């Protein structure tokens, strides 16, 4: 058997008993298509699907500051590093929490996401939400998601218990094989250089290496609790990453003043991490269009999320 045939067989061995996607996929697609919903941008794991109506978010002031890919002036690099090193220092001063596997990472946040309306109007709209999520620390317990606004999201986040993930489809229960994906990791690097190597090692995809590392860093801190040392290491690694620059002063999704840092993305939007300009506390993130897309213009904000609270709690549903 040659390699391609083997690969085909391995692929077939992964197939589900029922080849059709569940009916809810069709329903979701058609409901959103009829409602003129714009597909969710890559954000907040897989759970956020935009929906609903609100005002257009604009950030026209940022257009002039979006510089071409590859620009890394020494001045902007220095100040970005300053902010990130400040964030690292702030992170190190936080109390270290002891996280048990059976506990939950609690994150409270608010966000807004853009959509383009289909049909006659062609008007862009945005949906805002308030969100509380409880993520199983070791990935084996069922987490919880509560969200007001935006599209309906699942309220239960199935954990992987004894190698099986239990999902409820209507009145049916389906179990899928799985490997627990911990939401708290005690084994992350705790110094900046090791973290930078970790980011490079765990970054994949078609983008340039440094860009991928930046994205991976964002993934690591999004809706997560990291130990003070690991969190400081992430910021320290970003401070060493070439091309990270200050985008400018922004107001975050919760109305707090912030300073946005970014690396230019190649796919037409700019992912920004936002920090408090005085305390250097991480506030949240945004993604901003760098070129026109549909009726949206370069400079408009596609997604904006502000973290309000991060905590470790004993039970899903428990607020700190």
């Amino acid at each position: 058997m040659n390699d391609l045939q083997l690969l085909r067989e391995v692929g077939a061995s992964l197939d589900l008993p029922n080849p059709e996607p569940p009916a809810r996929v069709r329903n979701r697609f058609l409901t959103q298509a009829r409602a003129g919903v714009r597909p969710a941008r890559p954000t907040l794991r897989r759970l956020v699907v935009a929906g609903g109506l609100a005002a257009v978010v604009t950030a026209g002031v940022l257009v002039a500051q979006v510089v071409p890919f590859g620009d890394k002036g020494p001045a902007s690099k220095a100040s970005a590093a300053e902010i990130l090193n400040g964030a690292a220092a702030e992170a190190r001063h936080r109390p270290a929490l002891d996280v048990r596997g059976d506990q939950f990472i609690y994150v409270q946040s608010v966000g807004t996401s853009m959509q383009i309306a289909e049909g006659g109007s062609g008007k862009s709209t945005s949906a805002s939400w308030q969100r509380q999520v409880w993520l199983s620390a070791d990935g084996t317990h069922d987490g919880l998601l509560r969200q007001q606004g935006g599209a309906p999201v699942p309220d239960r986040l199935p954990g992987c218990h004894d190698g099986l993930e239990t999902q409820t489809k209507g009145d049916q229960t389906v179990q899928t094989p799985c490997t627990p994906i911990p939401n708290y990791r005690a084994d992350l690097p705790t110094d900046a250089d090791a973290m930078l190597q970790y980011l490079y090692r765990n970054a994949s995809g078609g983008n340039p290496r440094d860009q991928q590392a930046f994205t991976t860093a964002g993934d690591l801190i999004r809706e997560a609790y990291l130990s003070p040392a690991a969190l400081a290491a992430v910021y320290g690694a970003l401070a060493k990453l070439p091309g990270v620059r200050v985008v400018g002063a922004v107001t975050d999704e919760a109305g707090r003043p912030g300073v946005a840092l970014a690396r230019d993305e190649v796919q037409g939007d700019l992912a920004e991490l936002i920090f408090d300009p005085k305390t250097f506390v991480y506030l949240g993130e945004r993604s901003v269009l760098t070129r026109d897309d549909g009726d949206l213009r370069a400079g408009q904000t596609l997604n904006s999320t502000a973290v309000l609270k991060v905590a470790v709690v004993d039970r899903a549903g428990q607020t700190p």
Partner: protein
Amino acid sequence: VLTDVAVPQLSDAALIEASHRDTEMFGLLYDRYAAQLFRYANRRIGAEHAEDAVADAFLIAFRGRARYDVGRPDARPWLFGILTKVIARRRRAEQARYRMLARAGSDDVGAGFADDVTASVAARSSRGPLAGALRRLSSGDRDVLLLIAWGDLTYEEVALTLDIKIGTVRSRLHRARRKLREALGPTHSADFFEGNS
């Protein structure tokens, strides 16, 4: 349901054109392709992500239907192209899946997969090395390899799907397969030269 009788003979392009007036027509396009897109996505990123990816891909397709080249009656490459981009956004899930498969390896063929009993011994024992190799491939090479091996697309369809030249499809596939064979070790290389597909 009411269109079941009338529509099957329409080309994909005709359905897409009709969907400008009637959104439900796109539902029929969904019915034609959802199963194969879902199967492909499930293999790469697992069932839960695949559900989201397929819904997203169809929504993106629907939004972009005005740009569809109606000179192409068959929408399969277009849809697979969109799905490929959606899957690219879920690279962490994909990487995690390959890591899990690599770990499962040959000792733990159970791993709960439905069709394990039907997979040959060779396929079971090579799952670990293959998953490791998939994880390490560049995304461009992996897309080509998997569209062919797991999506059952032809070279021509892959070229349309990824908007690359046929020559590029061939060279990426060649490179990807070389890495698969390296991962599988010497036992399999002889077979490859016999049965080069």
